[in-house]
Structures are given as structure tokens and as C-alpha cells.
């Protein structure tokens, strides 16, 4: 009898534990203490009449929200909730697998309310018009409209079929080529003398054949490294811009607005020839073809402690990243400044990519009217506050006051435990300044999610004396002085679901040509055999929709 009683108890416990596995985490199921209900204001004649009781906003964001559990994500959440009065739940998957995590989340039933979506994904989702909330009216009538700066033009490019489904708080930004100045100095070169592709290539050759790092060994370095010969996402050419120049190896509109396959153009053929020559000459670090899409591995090799086998040039995001790369080189005892290559004569400009956009997911369980009210409520709580020009924008831009930045009178000490790097700076009361990193006290914290240099709304002037160093500001200014908008992204049903076929075929063909495994014609034949029919179908759909 005892055994039977015991078995019943055991079975009950197991069933209970199984049932418990299906319960929602406490932070998702617990109703917030604050019962802040946000009514949908009338924004236009088509504005929703219903109200929506918004208690919680669940967001999904990639690593561009820099804060982590260790560096103050919880404090950020609490500060946001205090300012806005609504519960904020942040889901931040691993940055390198964000697209996969996002695709899975959007296929599930428990979708996030607000999502940061890569531009390519946004253009496809928006074209279907069924999943994302149409925020056109909300955006055009938003309180922040009158305060936006010239960079807000970025959102003009987010309209799809005349409607806006997502908004970016920053300009897109793009890549410029950074050069280790010490290497130039060692070879008696100056970055301002690099004006043409030949100048650029000559520099790469000298970095490869000579001894730019001054270690006494010729030929143990490379000219340039990149995370792939062609990027895995639009605008495709940004990591080797001087080689690709004005070629665009993807579906693109020509000067007449007709969609064509940019991969089959003469410009692309010429670019592949340049890359092929460079590969044969050994000026491109061979790890470039192994690090496809792995920007972290690439940049860590570039600024790593052991400079043997590294490269002199690396194309990466303009602006704040110039300072970050400089800091990392310094941290690794690599004594060099980072200088930015000017636009070479053969390029029309630096490619300003389409920025990732914040979108609101429709709730299909609600009526259209309720869904609109919900969308407006989320817009008011999340989007309006993100660009409020005040406390919440500061949170998104710099993090939490007292933890990441401060206005207090104090002396900030960098690297307190490393005498040769220790640096003290004293600030007066009311003087804005960043604080040392939570995990790394040798450098100041730089930004949270919004890069102030790229923000579509300026913060009050006292906050613009910001974390953005002179070199970061100078880098961004140089980029935007010569920036050209990245081409519009194709939006068609076939492209939406089969773009991987085209992208894979491009990667295969580029690698085959550049590494000399196939000549251009043979590689193009294979490309057409693999992806030709998909390309043809997509071009047909795109041009029919014109």
C-alpha cells in the first residue's frame, strides 16, 4: 500500500512539474504595479476612436542596445519604467543570431509588441502590409516632428507603398576605411595623399610587402581585412568599398527606375577583377573569406594584441567606431592612431545604408479598431518617448544617470589600477560627462542604443558636449559630407522568400572569381544556373509593380 501511495505522490509531483514548465516567466505574467493606461489621442480624422489600456511593452532588440545584464540593462529598464509609467520587457538575443531569433519570434504566437528590424527584413514585411502596424499618421503627427533635425530624412526612405510601418531614431550610417597611422608613418606615407584607387592599392601593397609594423620582418602583414569579400546584407559592398567602388552586386534600379541585376553588370565585373588581382597579390588577408559576416572576429584580429599577420586597413562604421577601434588598439598595447581614408576619386560617395527600424507588430487577436488604438498607445509610450529630447532619449542615448553618465561635480578616474594609463578628470556641478565602463574602467562608456552623432533629434546642447570624441565627430562629418543613399531594397513576394538563393549564389560566384578558382564567365554561368530563374522572376515582379 505504501508503494502505491508513494507512486501516486511521485506521479502527481511529476505532472505538476511538467505543468509548471509551461507557465510564463514571472516578469511576463505579473501585471505591473503601475496601472498607467494610455488613451489613443486623436491624431487625424482616421485616428482610432477606441482606447487601449497599455500596461506593458515587450520589445525585441539586437546588440545595438549596448547595455547587458552586467552593465546595467535592468537599471535601464527600471529607469524607463519610472519615466514612462509602463512595464518594459526587453528580449535581447545574441547579436550574431538576431535575425534567426527574430524570425522564430515572429513565427510564434507570443510575439513581441515592438521589434528592432533589419532594413532588408523591414522592407519585405512592410510590403505585405499585414504584420506591421501602419504608423504613418502617428509618425506624421508625432510631438517630436517639430524638433527633428536633417538626419530625420532617414525615415523618408522607410515608406513602403506610401505608408510608414517603422521608424529609425538614427541615420543609417555606413562604412569608411580606417588605417593604422603608425604603419603609414613607418613607410613615410600620409593618408591625405591617398586620392585614387592606384594610391590606395599602392598603400595596400606596401603594407603587405614591406615592414609597416616595424617588427623587422618584411611581408608578415596584410593590406586589408574584411568580414567577407561581399557582405551578407545590404548594402553588400560596405566592407571593401574602394574595391567595389560604384558597383552594386544585387538587385537594383537603374537610372530609369527599371530593376536590374547589379551582379551581372560591367561595374561588378570590374570590381571582381580588382578583388581578384588583390587576392592574387596577397594584399587581402585570406581570413577575409573565412570571416564572412563575422565582424567581431574581423575587428578583433585587426586590433589584436599580436599584430603579426594583421592588416593595416579595415572598413567599418563611421563615427563612434573610430574611437572604439582606437581604444581597443590602445588597450592591446598597439600604439597607433586610427585615421580615416578620404573618399577616393573613383567612388561617387560613401554608402549610407538603410537604418534598422523599430516597428510595432499588429495584434491579430484584436479588432481593427482595437489594434489601431493599441498601436497608437504603444507609439505614444515607446516611440514618442524615445525622441522626447529629454530624459528618455538620454536613457536610449547614454544609459542611466549615475551609472553610465553624470552631471555631478566629481573627479572621474580612468584605469585607477594601471599607473601608466591612470587618468583623472574633474567636472563641475551640472557639467555633462560619461563615466568609466562598468566592466572596463580603462575607457569611458560611449553610448547605449542611439548614437548621438546620428540621432534624428538633437539633445539639449549641454548633452551634446558628449561622449562623442573629436575623432568620432570628425569621422561622421567626413562620412556625411560625401554620403550617398544606399539603393532602395527590392520588395516582391518571391524575393521575400527566396532571397537566400540569390545571396548564396552571389557569395559562391564572388569567392570563385576572386580566388581564381573560376573565370568570370564560368562563375556567372554557375550563378545563372543556380539563381537565374529566381532573379528573373523577381525582376519581373518588381518591374511589373512599377
Amino acid at each position, binding site marked *: 500500500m505504501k508503494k502505491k501511495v508513494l507512486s501516486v505522490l511521485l506521479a502527481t509531483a511529476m505532472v505538476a512539474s*511538467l505543468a509548471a514548465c509551461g507557465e510564463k516567466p514571472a516578469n511576463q505574467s505579473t501585471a505591473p504595479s503601475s496601472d498607467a493606461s494610455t488613451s489613443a489621442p486623436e491624431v487625424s480624422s482616421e485616428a482610432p476612436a477606441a482606447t487601449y489600456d497599455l500596461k506593458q511593452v515587450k520589445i525585441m532588440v539586437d546588440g545595438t542596445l549596448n547595455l547587458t545584464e552586467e552593465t546595467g540593462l535592468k537599471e535601464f529598464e527600471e529607469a524607463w519604467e519610472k519615466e514612462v509609467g509602463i512595464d518594459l520587457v526587453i528580449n535581447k538575443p545574441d547579436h550574431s543570431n538576431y535575425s534567426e531569433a527574430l*524570425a522564430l519570434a515572429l513565427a510564434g504566437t507570443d510575439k513581441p509588441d515592438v521589434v528592432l528590424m533589419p532594413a532588408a527584413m523591414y522592407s519585405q514585411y512592410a510590403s505585405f502590409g499585414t504584420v506591421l502596424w501602419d504608423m504613418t499618421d502617428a509618425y506624421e503627427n508625432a510631438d517630436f516632428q517639430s524638433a527633428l533635425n536633417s538626419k530625420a530624412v532617414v525615415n523618408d526612405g522607410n515608406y513602403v507603398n506610401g505608408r510608414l510601418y517603422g521608424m529609425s531614431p538614427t541615420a543609417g550610417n555606413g562604412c569608411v576605411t580606417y588605417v593604422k597611422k603608425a604603419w603609414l608613418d613607418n613607410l613615410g606615407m600620409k593618408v591625405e595623399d591617398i586620392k585614387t584607387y592606384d594610391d590606395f592599392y599602392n598603400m595596400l601593397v606596401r603594407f603587405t610587402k614591406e615592414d609597416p609594423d616595424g617588427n623587422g620582418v618584411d611581408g608578415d602583414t596584410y593590406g586589408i581585412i574584411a568580414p567577407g569579400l561581399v557582405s551578407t546584407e545590404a548594402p553588400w559592398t560596405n566592407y571593401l568599398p574602394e574595391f567595389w567602388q560604384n558597383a552594386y552586386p544585387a538587385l537594383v534600379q537603374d537610372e530609369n527606375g527599371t530593376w536590374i541585376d547589379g551582379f551581372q553588370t560591367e561595374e561588378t565585373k570590374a570590381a571582381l577583377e580588382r578583388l581578384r588581382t588583390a587576392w592574387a597579390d596577397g594584399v587581402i588577408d*585570406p581570413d577575409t573569406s573565412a570571416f564572412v559576416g563575422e565582424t567581431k572576429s574581423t575587428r578583433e584580429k585587426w586590433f589584436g594584441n599580436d599584430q603579426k599577420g594583421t592588416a593595416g586597413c579595415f572598413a567599418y562604421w563611421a563615427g563612434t567606431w573610430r574611437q572604439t577601434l582606437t581604444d581597443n588598439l590602445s588597450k592591446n598595447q598597439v600604439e597607433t592612431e586610427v585615421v580615416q581614408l578620404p573618399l577616393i576619386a573613383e567612388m561617387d560617395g560613401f554608402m549610407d545604408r538603410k537604418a534598422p527600424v523599430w516597428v510595432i507588430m499588429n495584434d491579430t487577436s484584436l479588432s481593427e479598431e482595437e489594434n489601431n488604438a493599441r498601436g497608437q498607445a504603444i507609439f505614444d509610450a515607446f516611440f514618442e518617448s524615445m525622441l522626447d529630447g529629454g530624459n528618455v532619449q538620454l536613457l536610449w542615448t547614454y544609459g542611466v544617470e549615475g551609472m553610465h553618465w553624470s552631471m555631478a561635480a566629481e573627479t572621474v578616474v580612468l584605469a585607477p589600477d594601471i599607473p601608466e594609463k591612470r587618468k583623472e578628470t574633474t567636472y563641475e556641478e551640472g557639467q555633462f560627462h560619461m563615466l568609466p565602463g562598468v566592466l572596463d574602467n580603462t575607457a569611458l562608456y560611449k553610448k547605449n542604443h542611439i548614437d548621438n552623432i546620428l540621432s534624428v533629434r538633437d539633445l539639449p546642447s549641454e548633452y551634446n558636449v558628449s561622449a562623442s570624441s573629436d575623432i568620432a565627430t570628425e569621422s561622421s562629418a567626413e562620412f556625411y559630407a560625401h554620403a550617398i543613399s544606399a539603393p532602395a531594397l527590392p520588395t516582391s513576394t518571391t524575393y521575400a522568400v527566396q532571397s537566400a538563393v540569390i545571396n548564396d549564389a552571389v557569395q*559562391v560566384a564572388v569567392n570563385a572569381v576572386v580566388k581564381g578558382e573560376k573565370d568570370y564567365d564560368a562563375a556567372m554561368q554557375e550563378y545563372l544556373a543556380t539563381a537565374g530563374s529566381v532573379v528573373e522572376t523577381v525582376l519581373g515582379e518588381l518591374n511589373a509593380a512599377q
Partner: protein
Amino acid sequence: MSKKKITTSTGAVVKQKPLGMRIWNHRGYYIMFLPVLAFLAVVHYWPMLGIRYSFYQYYTVMAPKFVGLQNFRNMFATNQFWIAFGNTLLLSIMKLIITTITSVVVSIFLNEMGNLFAKKSLQTIIYLPHFMSWAVVAGIFTLFLSASNTGVLNGMLHDWGILDPKTSISFLEEPKYWRTIFYIINIWKETGWGTIIFLATLSGINPELYEAADIDGATRMQKIRFVTVPALANTIFTVLILNLAKVMNMFESVFVLYNASVYRVADVISTYIYRQSFGTAVADYGYSTAVGLFKSLVGAALVLICNWASKKGRGRGII
């Protein structure tokens, strides 16, 4: 209706009790089994309802739409699918054969070692790679095989004068090297673990057989050939057919080692499904599910074939 008669283990013929009464009599066991049943239903069988989406056009941006066999027609008309299918069979079967052979050879070698300390030490050393994740293994071999100045193998080839110092080989990016390297990495990682079952069999061989061979004047090689290998034959066959049933389940080892340059020789069904699901802006889960279902059906067919082969060869099935 008359009760069914059954014969007990003692040979007595008794009338079988009604099902309800039998369940009631053994209710404790049935209650204990309930959580297992619930687990199986929820974790293994309930998700199978998703199979229906292989007959739907299922984009994440709109409600699923029934399309019949269209996804399967698309799949069979796609060149890359057949490349992936062929690679799956080739890579899996070759890997199975090669790692089984190396495991047998290493097991025999270990069995012949007289020094117990050396034997145990070697066993431990060759087991260790099995416990490393594929991501770590890929990281190690990517560094080792890198074509840049930091690549160990290229450096050695340069130093030994085998390769011109001005050129390097991107081993993991060149189709002609990729499969060989894949097999070598699998041998390095899995041979040690594969020896366990063979060593267990070897330890069970009757020593009198070796004594008899000694009396007959057999050399060491002859003892291996005529005693050890025949004793292992049944185990080798069992291991082969058990693993043959799993050949379609190849993903992680390929995923961490392949790249766009080698899709032609490396892409397998699982990595193809992965790219179809996550490599596009809008995933077509209907198509991915169709490919996944096809993979499962082939896998199920292989299990049945192996079961049949097992019955023929060993006298008993594997399921």
C-alpha cells in the same frame, strides 16, 4: 462474450480478466507511467501536428494557405535540394564507414597494449575531443587551417618548402579539400568515443581462444586476424546498422565548418533547411517543413531497412 484464455508462465491455462480490471489491478504502474505518456505526447507527438504545414504556403507575414503538394514539387525541381540530399548521404555514410574502421583499428591497438598506464592514458586522451562542442572544434581547426599568416598548417607547409611562401591554401574554403578535412576532423573527434563499445567486446573474448592460438603457434598478427577480428564482426555490424539509421541527422558538424564557397560539396539537408528558414527576409515555413518531412521519411525508411538487415544478420531487430 466469453473471456479470452491465456497460458501462464507455469503452463496453467486461465481466463484473462477484463481490460478494465487489469488496469485497475495495476493502477500504480499506470499512474507512474502517466507523466511519461504526457511527456511523450507533449514533447514528441504534439509538435508533429506541424507536419501539416508542408502542404501549406506558410509565410510568417500571412495566414497559412493550403497548396497541396506544391512545396514538394518545388523541392524536387530545385537543384540545390538534390545537391544537399546527395551530400547528406555521401558525407554521413563515408563518415560512418571511416570512423568505424578507425575505431576498430584503434581498439585493437589499445587491446594489444601491455602497459596498463599507457593504455589508460591513451584512452583518456583520445576520448577527450568527443566532449568538446562542435563550435569549439570548428574554432580550433579554423585557426589551425587558416590561410593567413597565423595559420599553423600553412606555416608548416611554408617552412618545409612544400608550399610557396607567397601562396596559401584556404583549406576550409576550397571544395577539393573540404570533404577530406571534414572526415579527418570527425576521425579526430569521434574515434576515441567509438572505441568504447569495441573495447568492451574485446574484453569479453574468451582467453582460451588466444591460448589455443598460442599452442597452435599463431603470431600476434595471426591472433588478431583469426581471433580478435572475427570476435568483433558482430559488434561492427551492429554499430554500423544502428548508426546507418541516423545518417540523415547531420547538421552541427557541417554548419560550423562550411561556408558559401563549399556549398556544392558540403551543404546537407539540415543546413539547406536552416538557410531556407533563416537566410531569407520572410521565411517560407511550408517549404522548410516539406523538406524536413522528406528528410524524416528517408530517415524512417533507413531505420526500417536497418531493422530488416539486423533481423537477417543478427537474428533480432533494432526496434
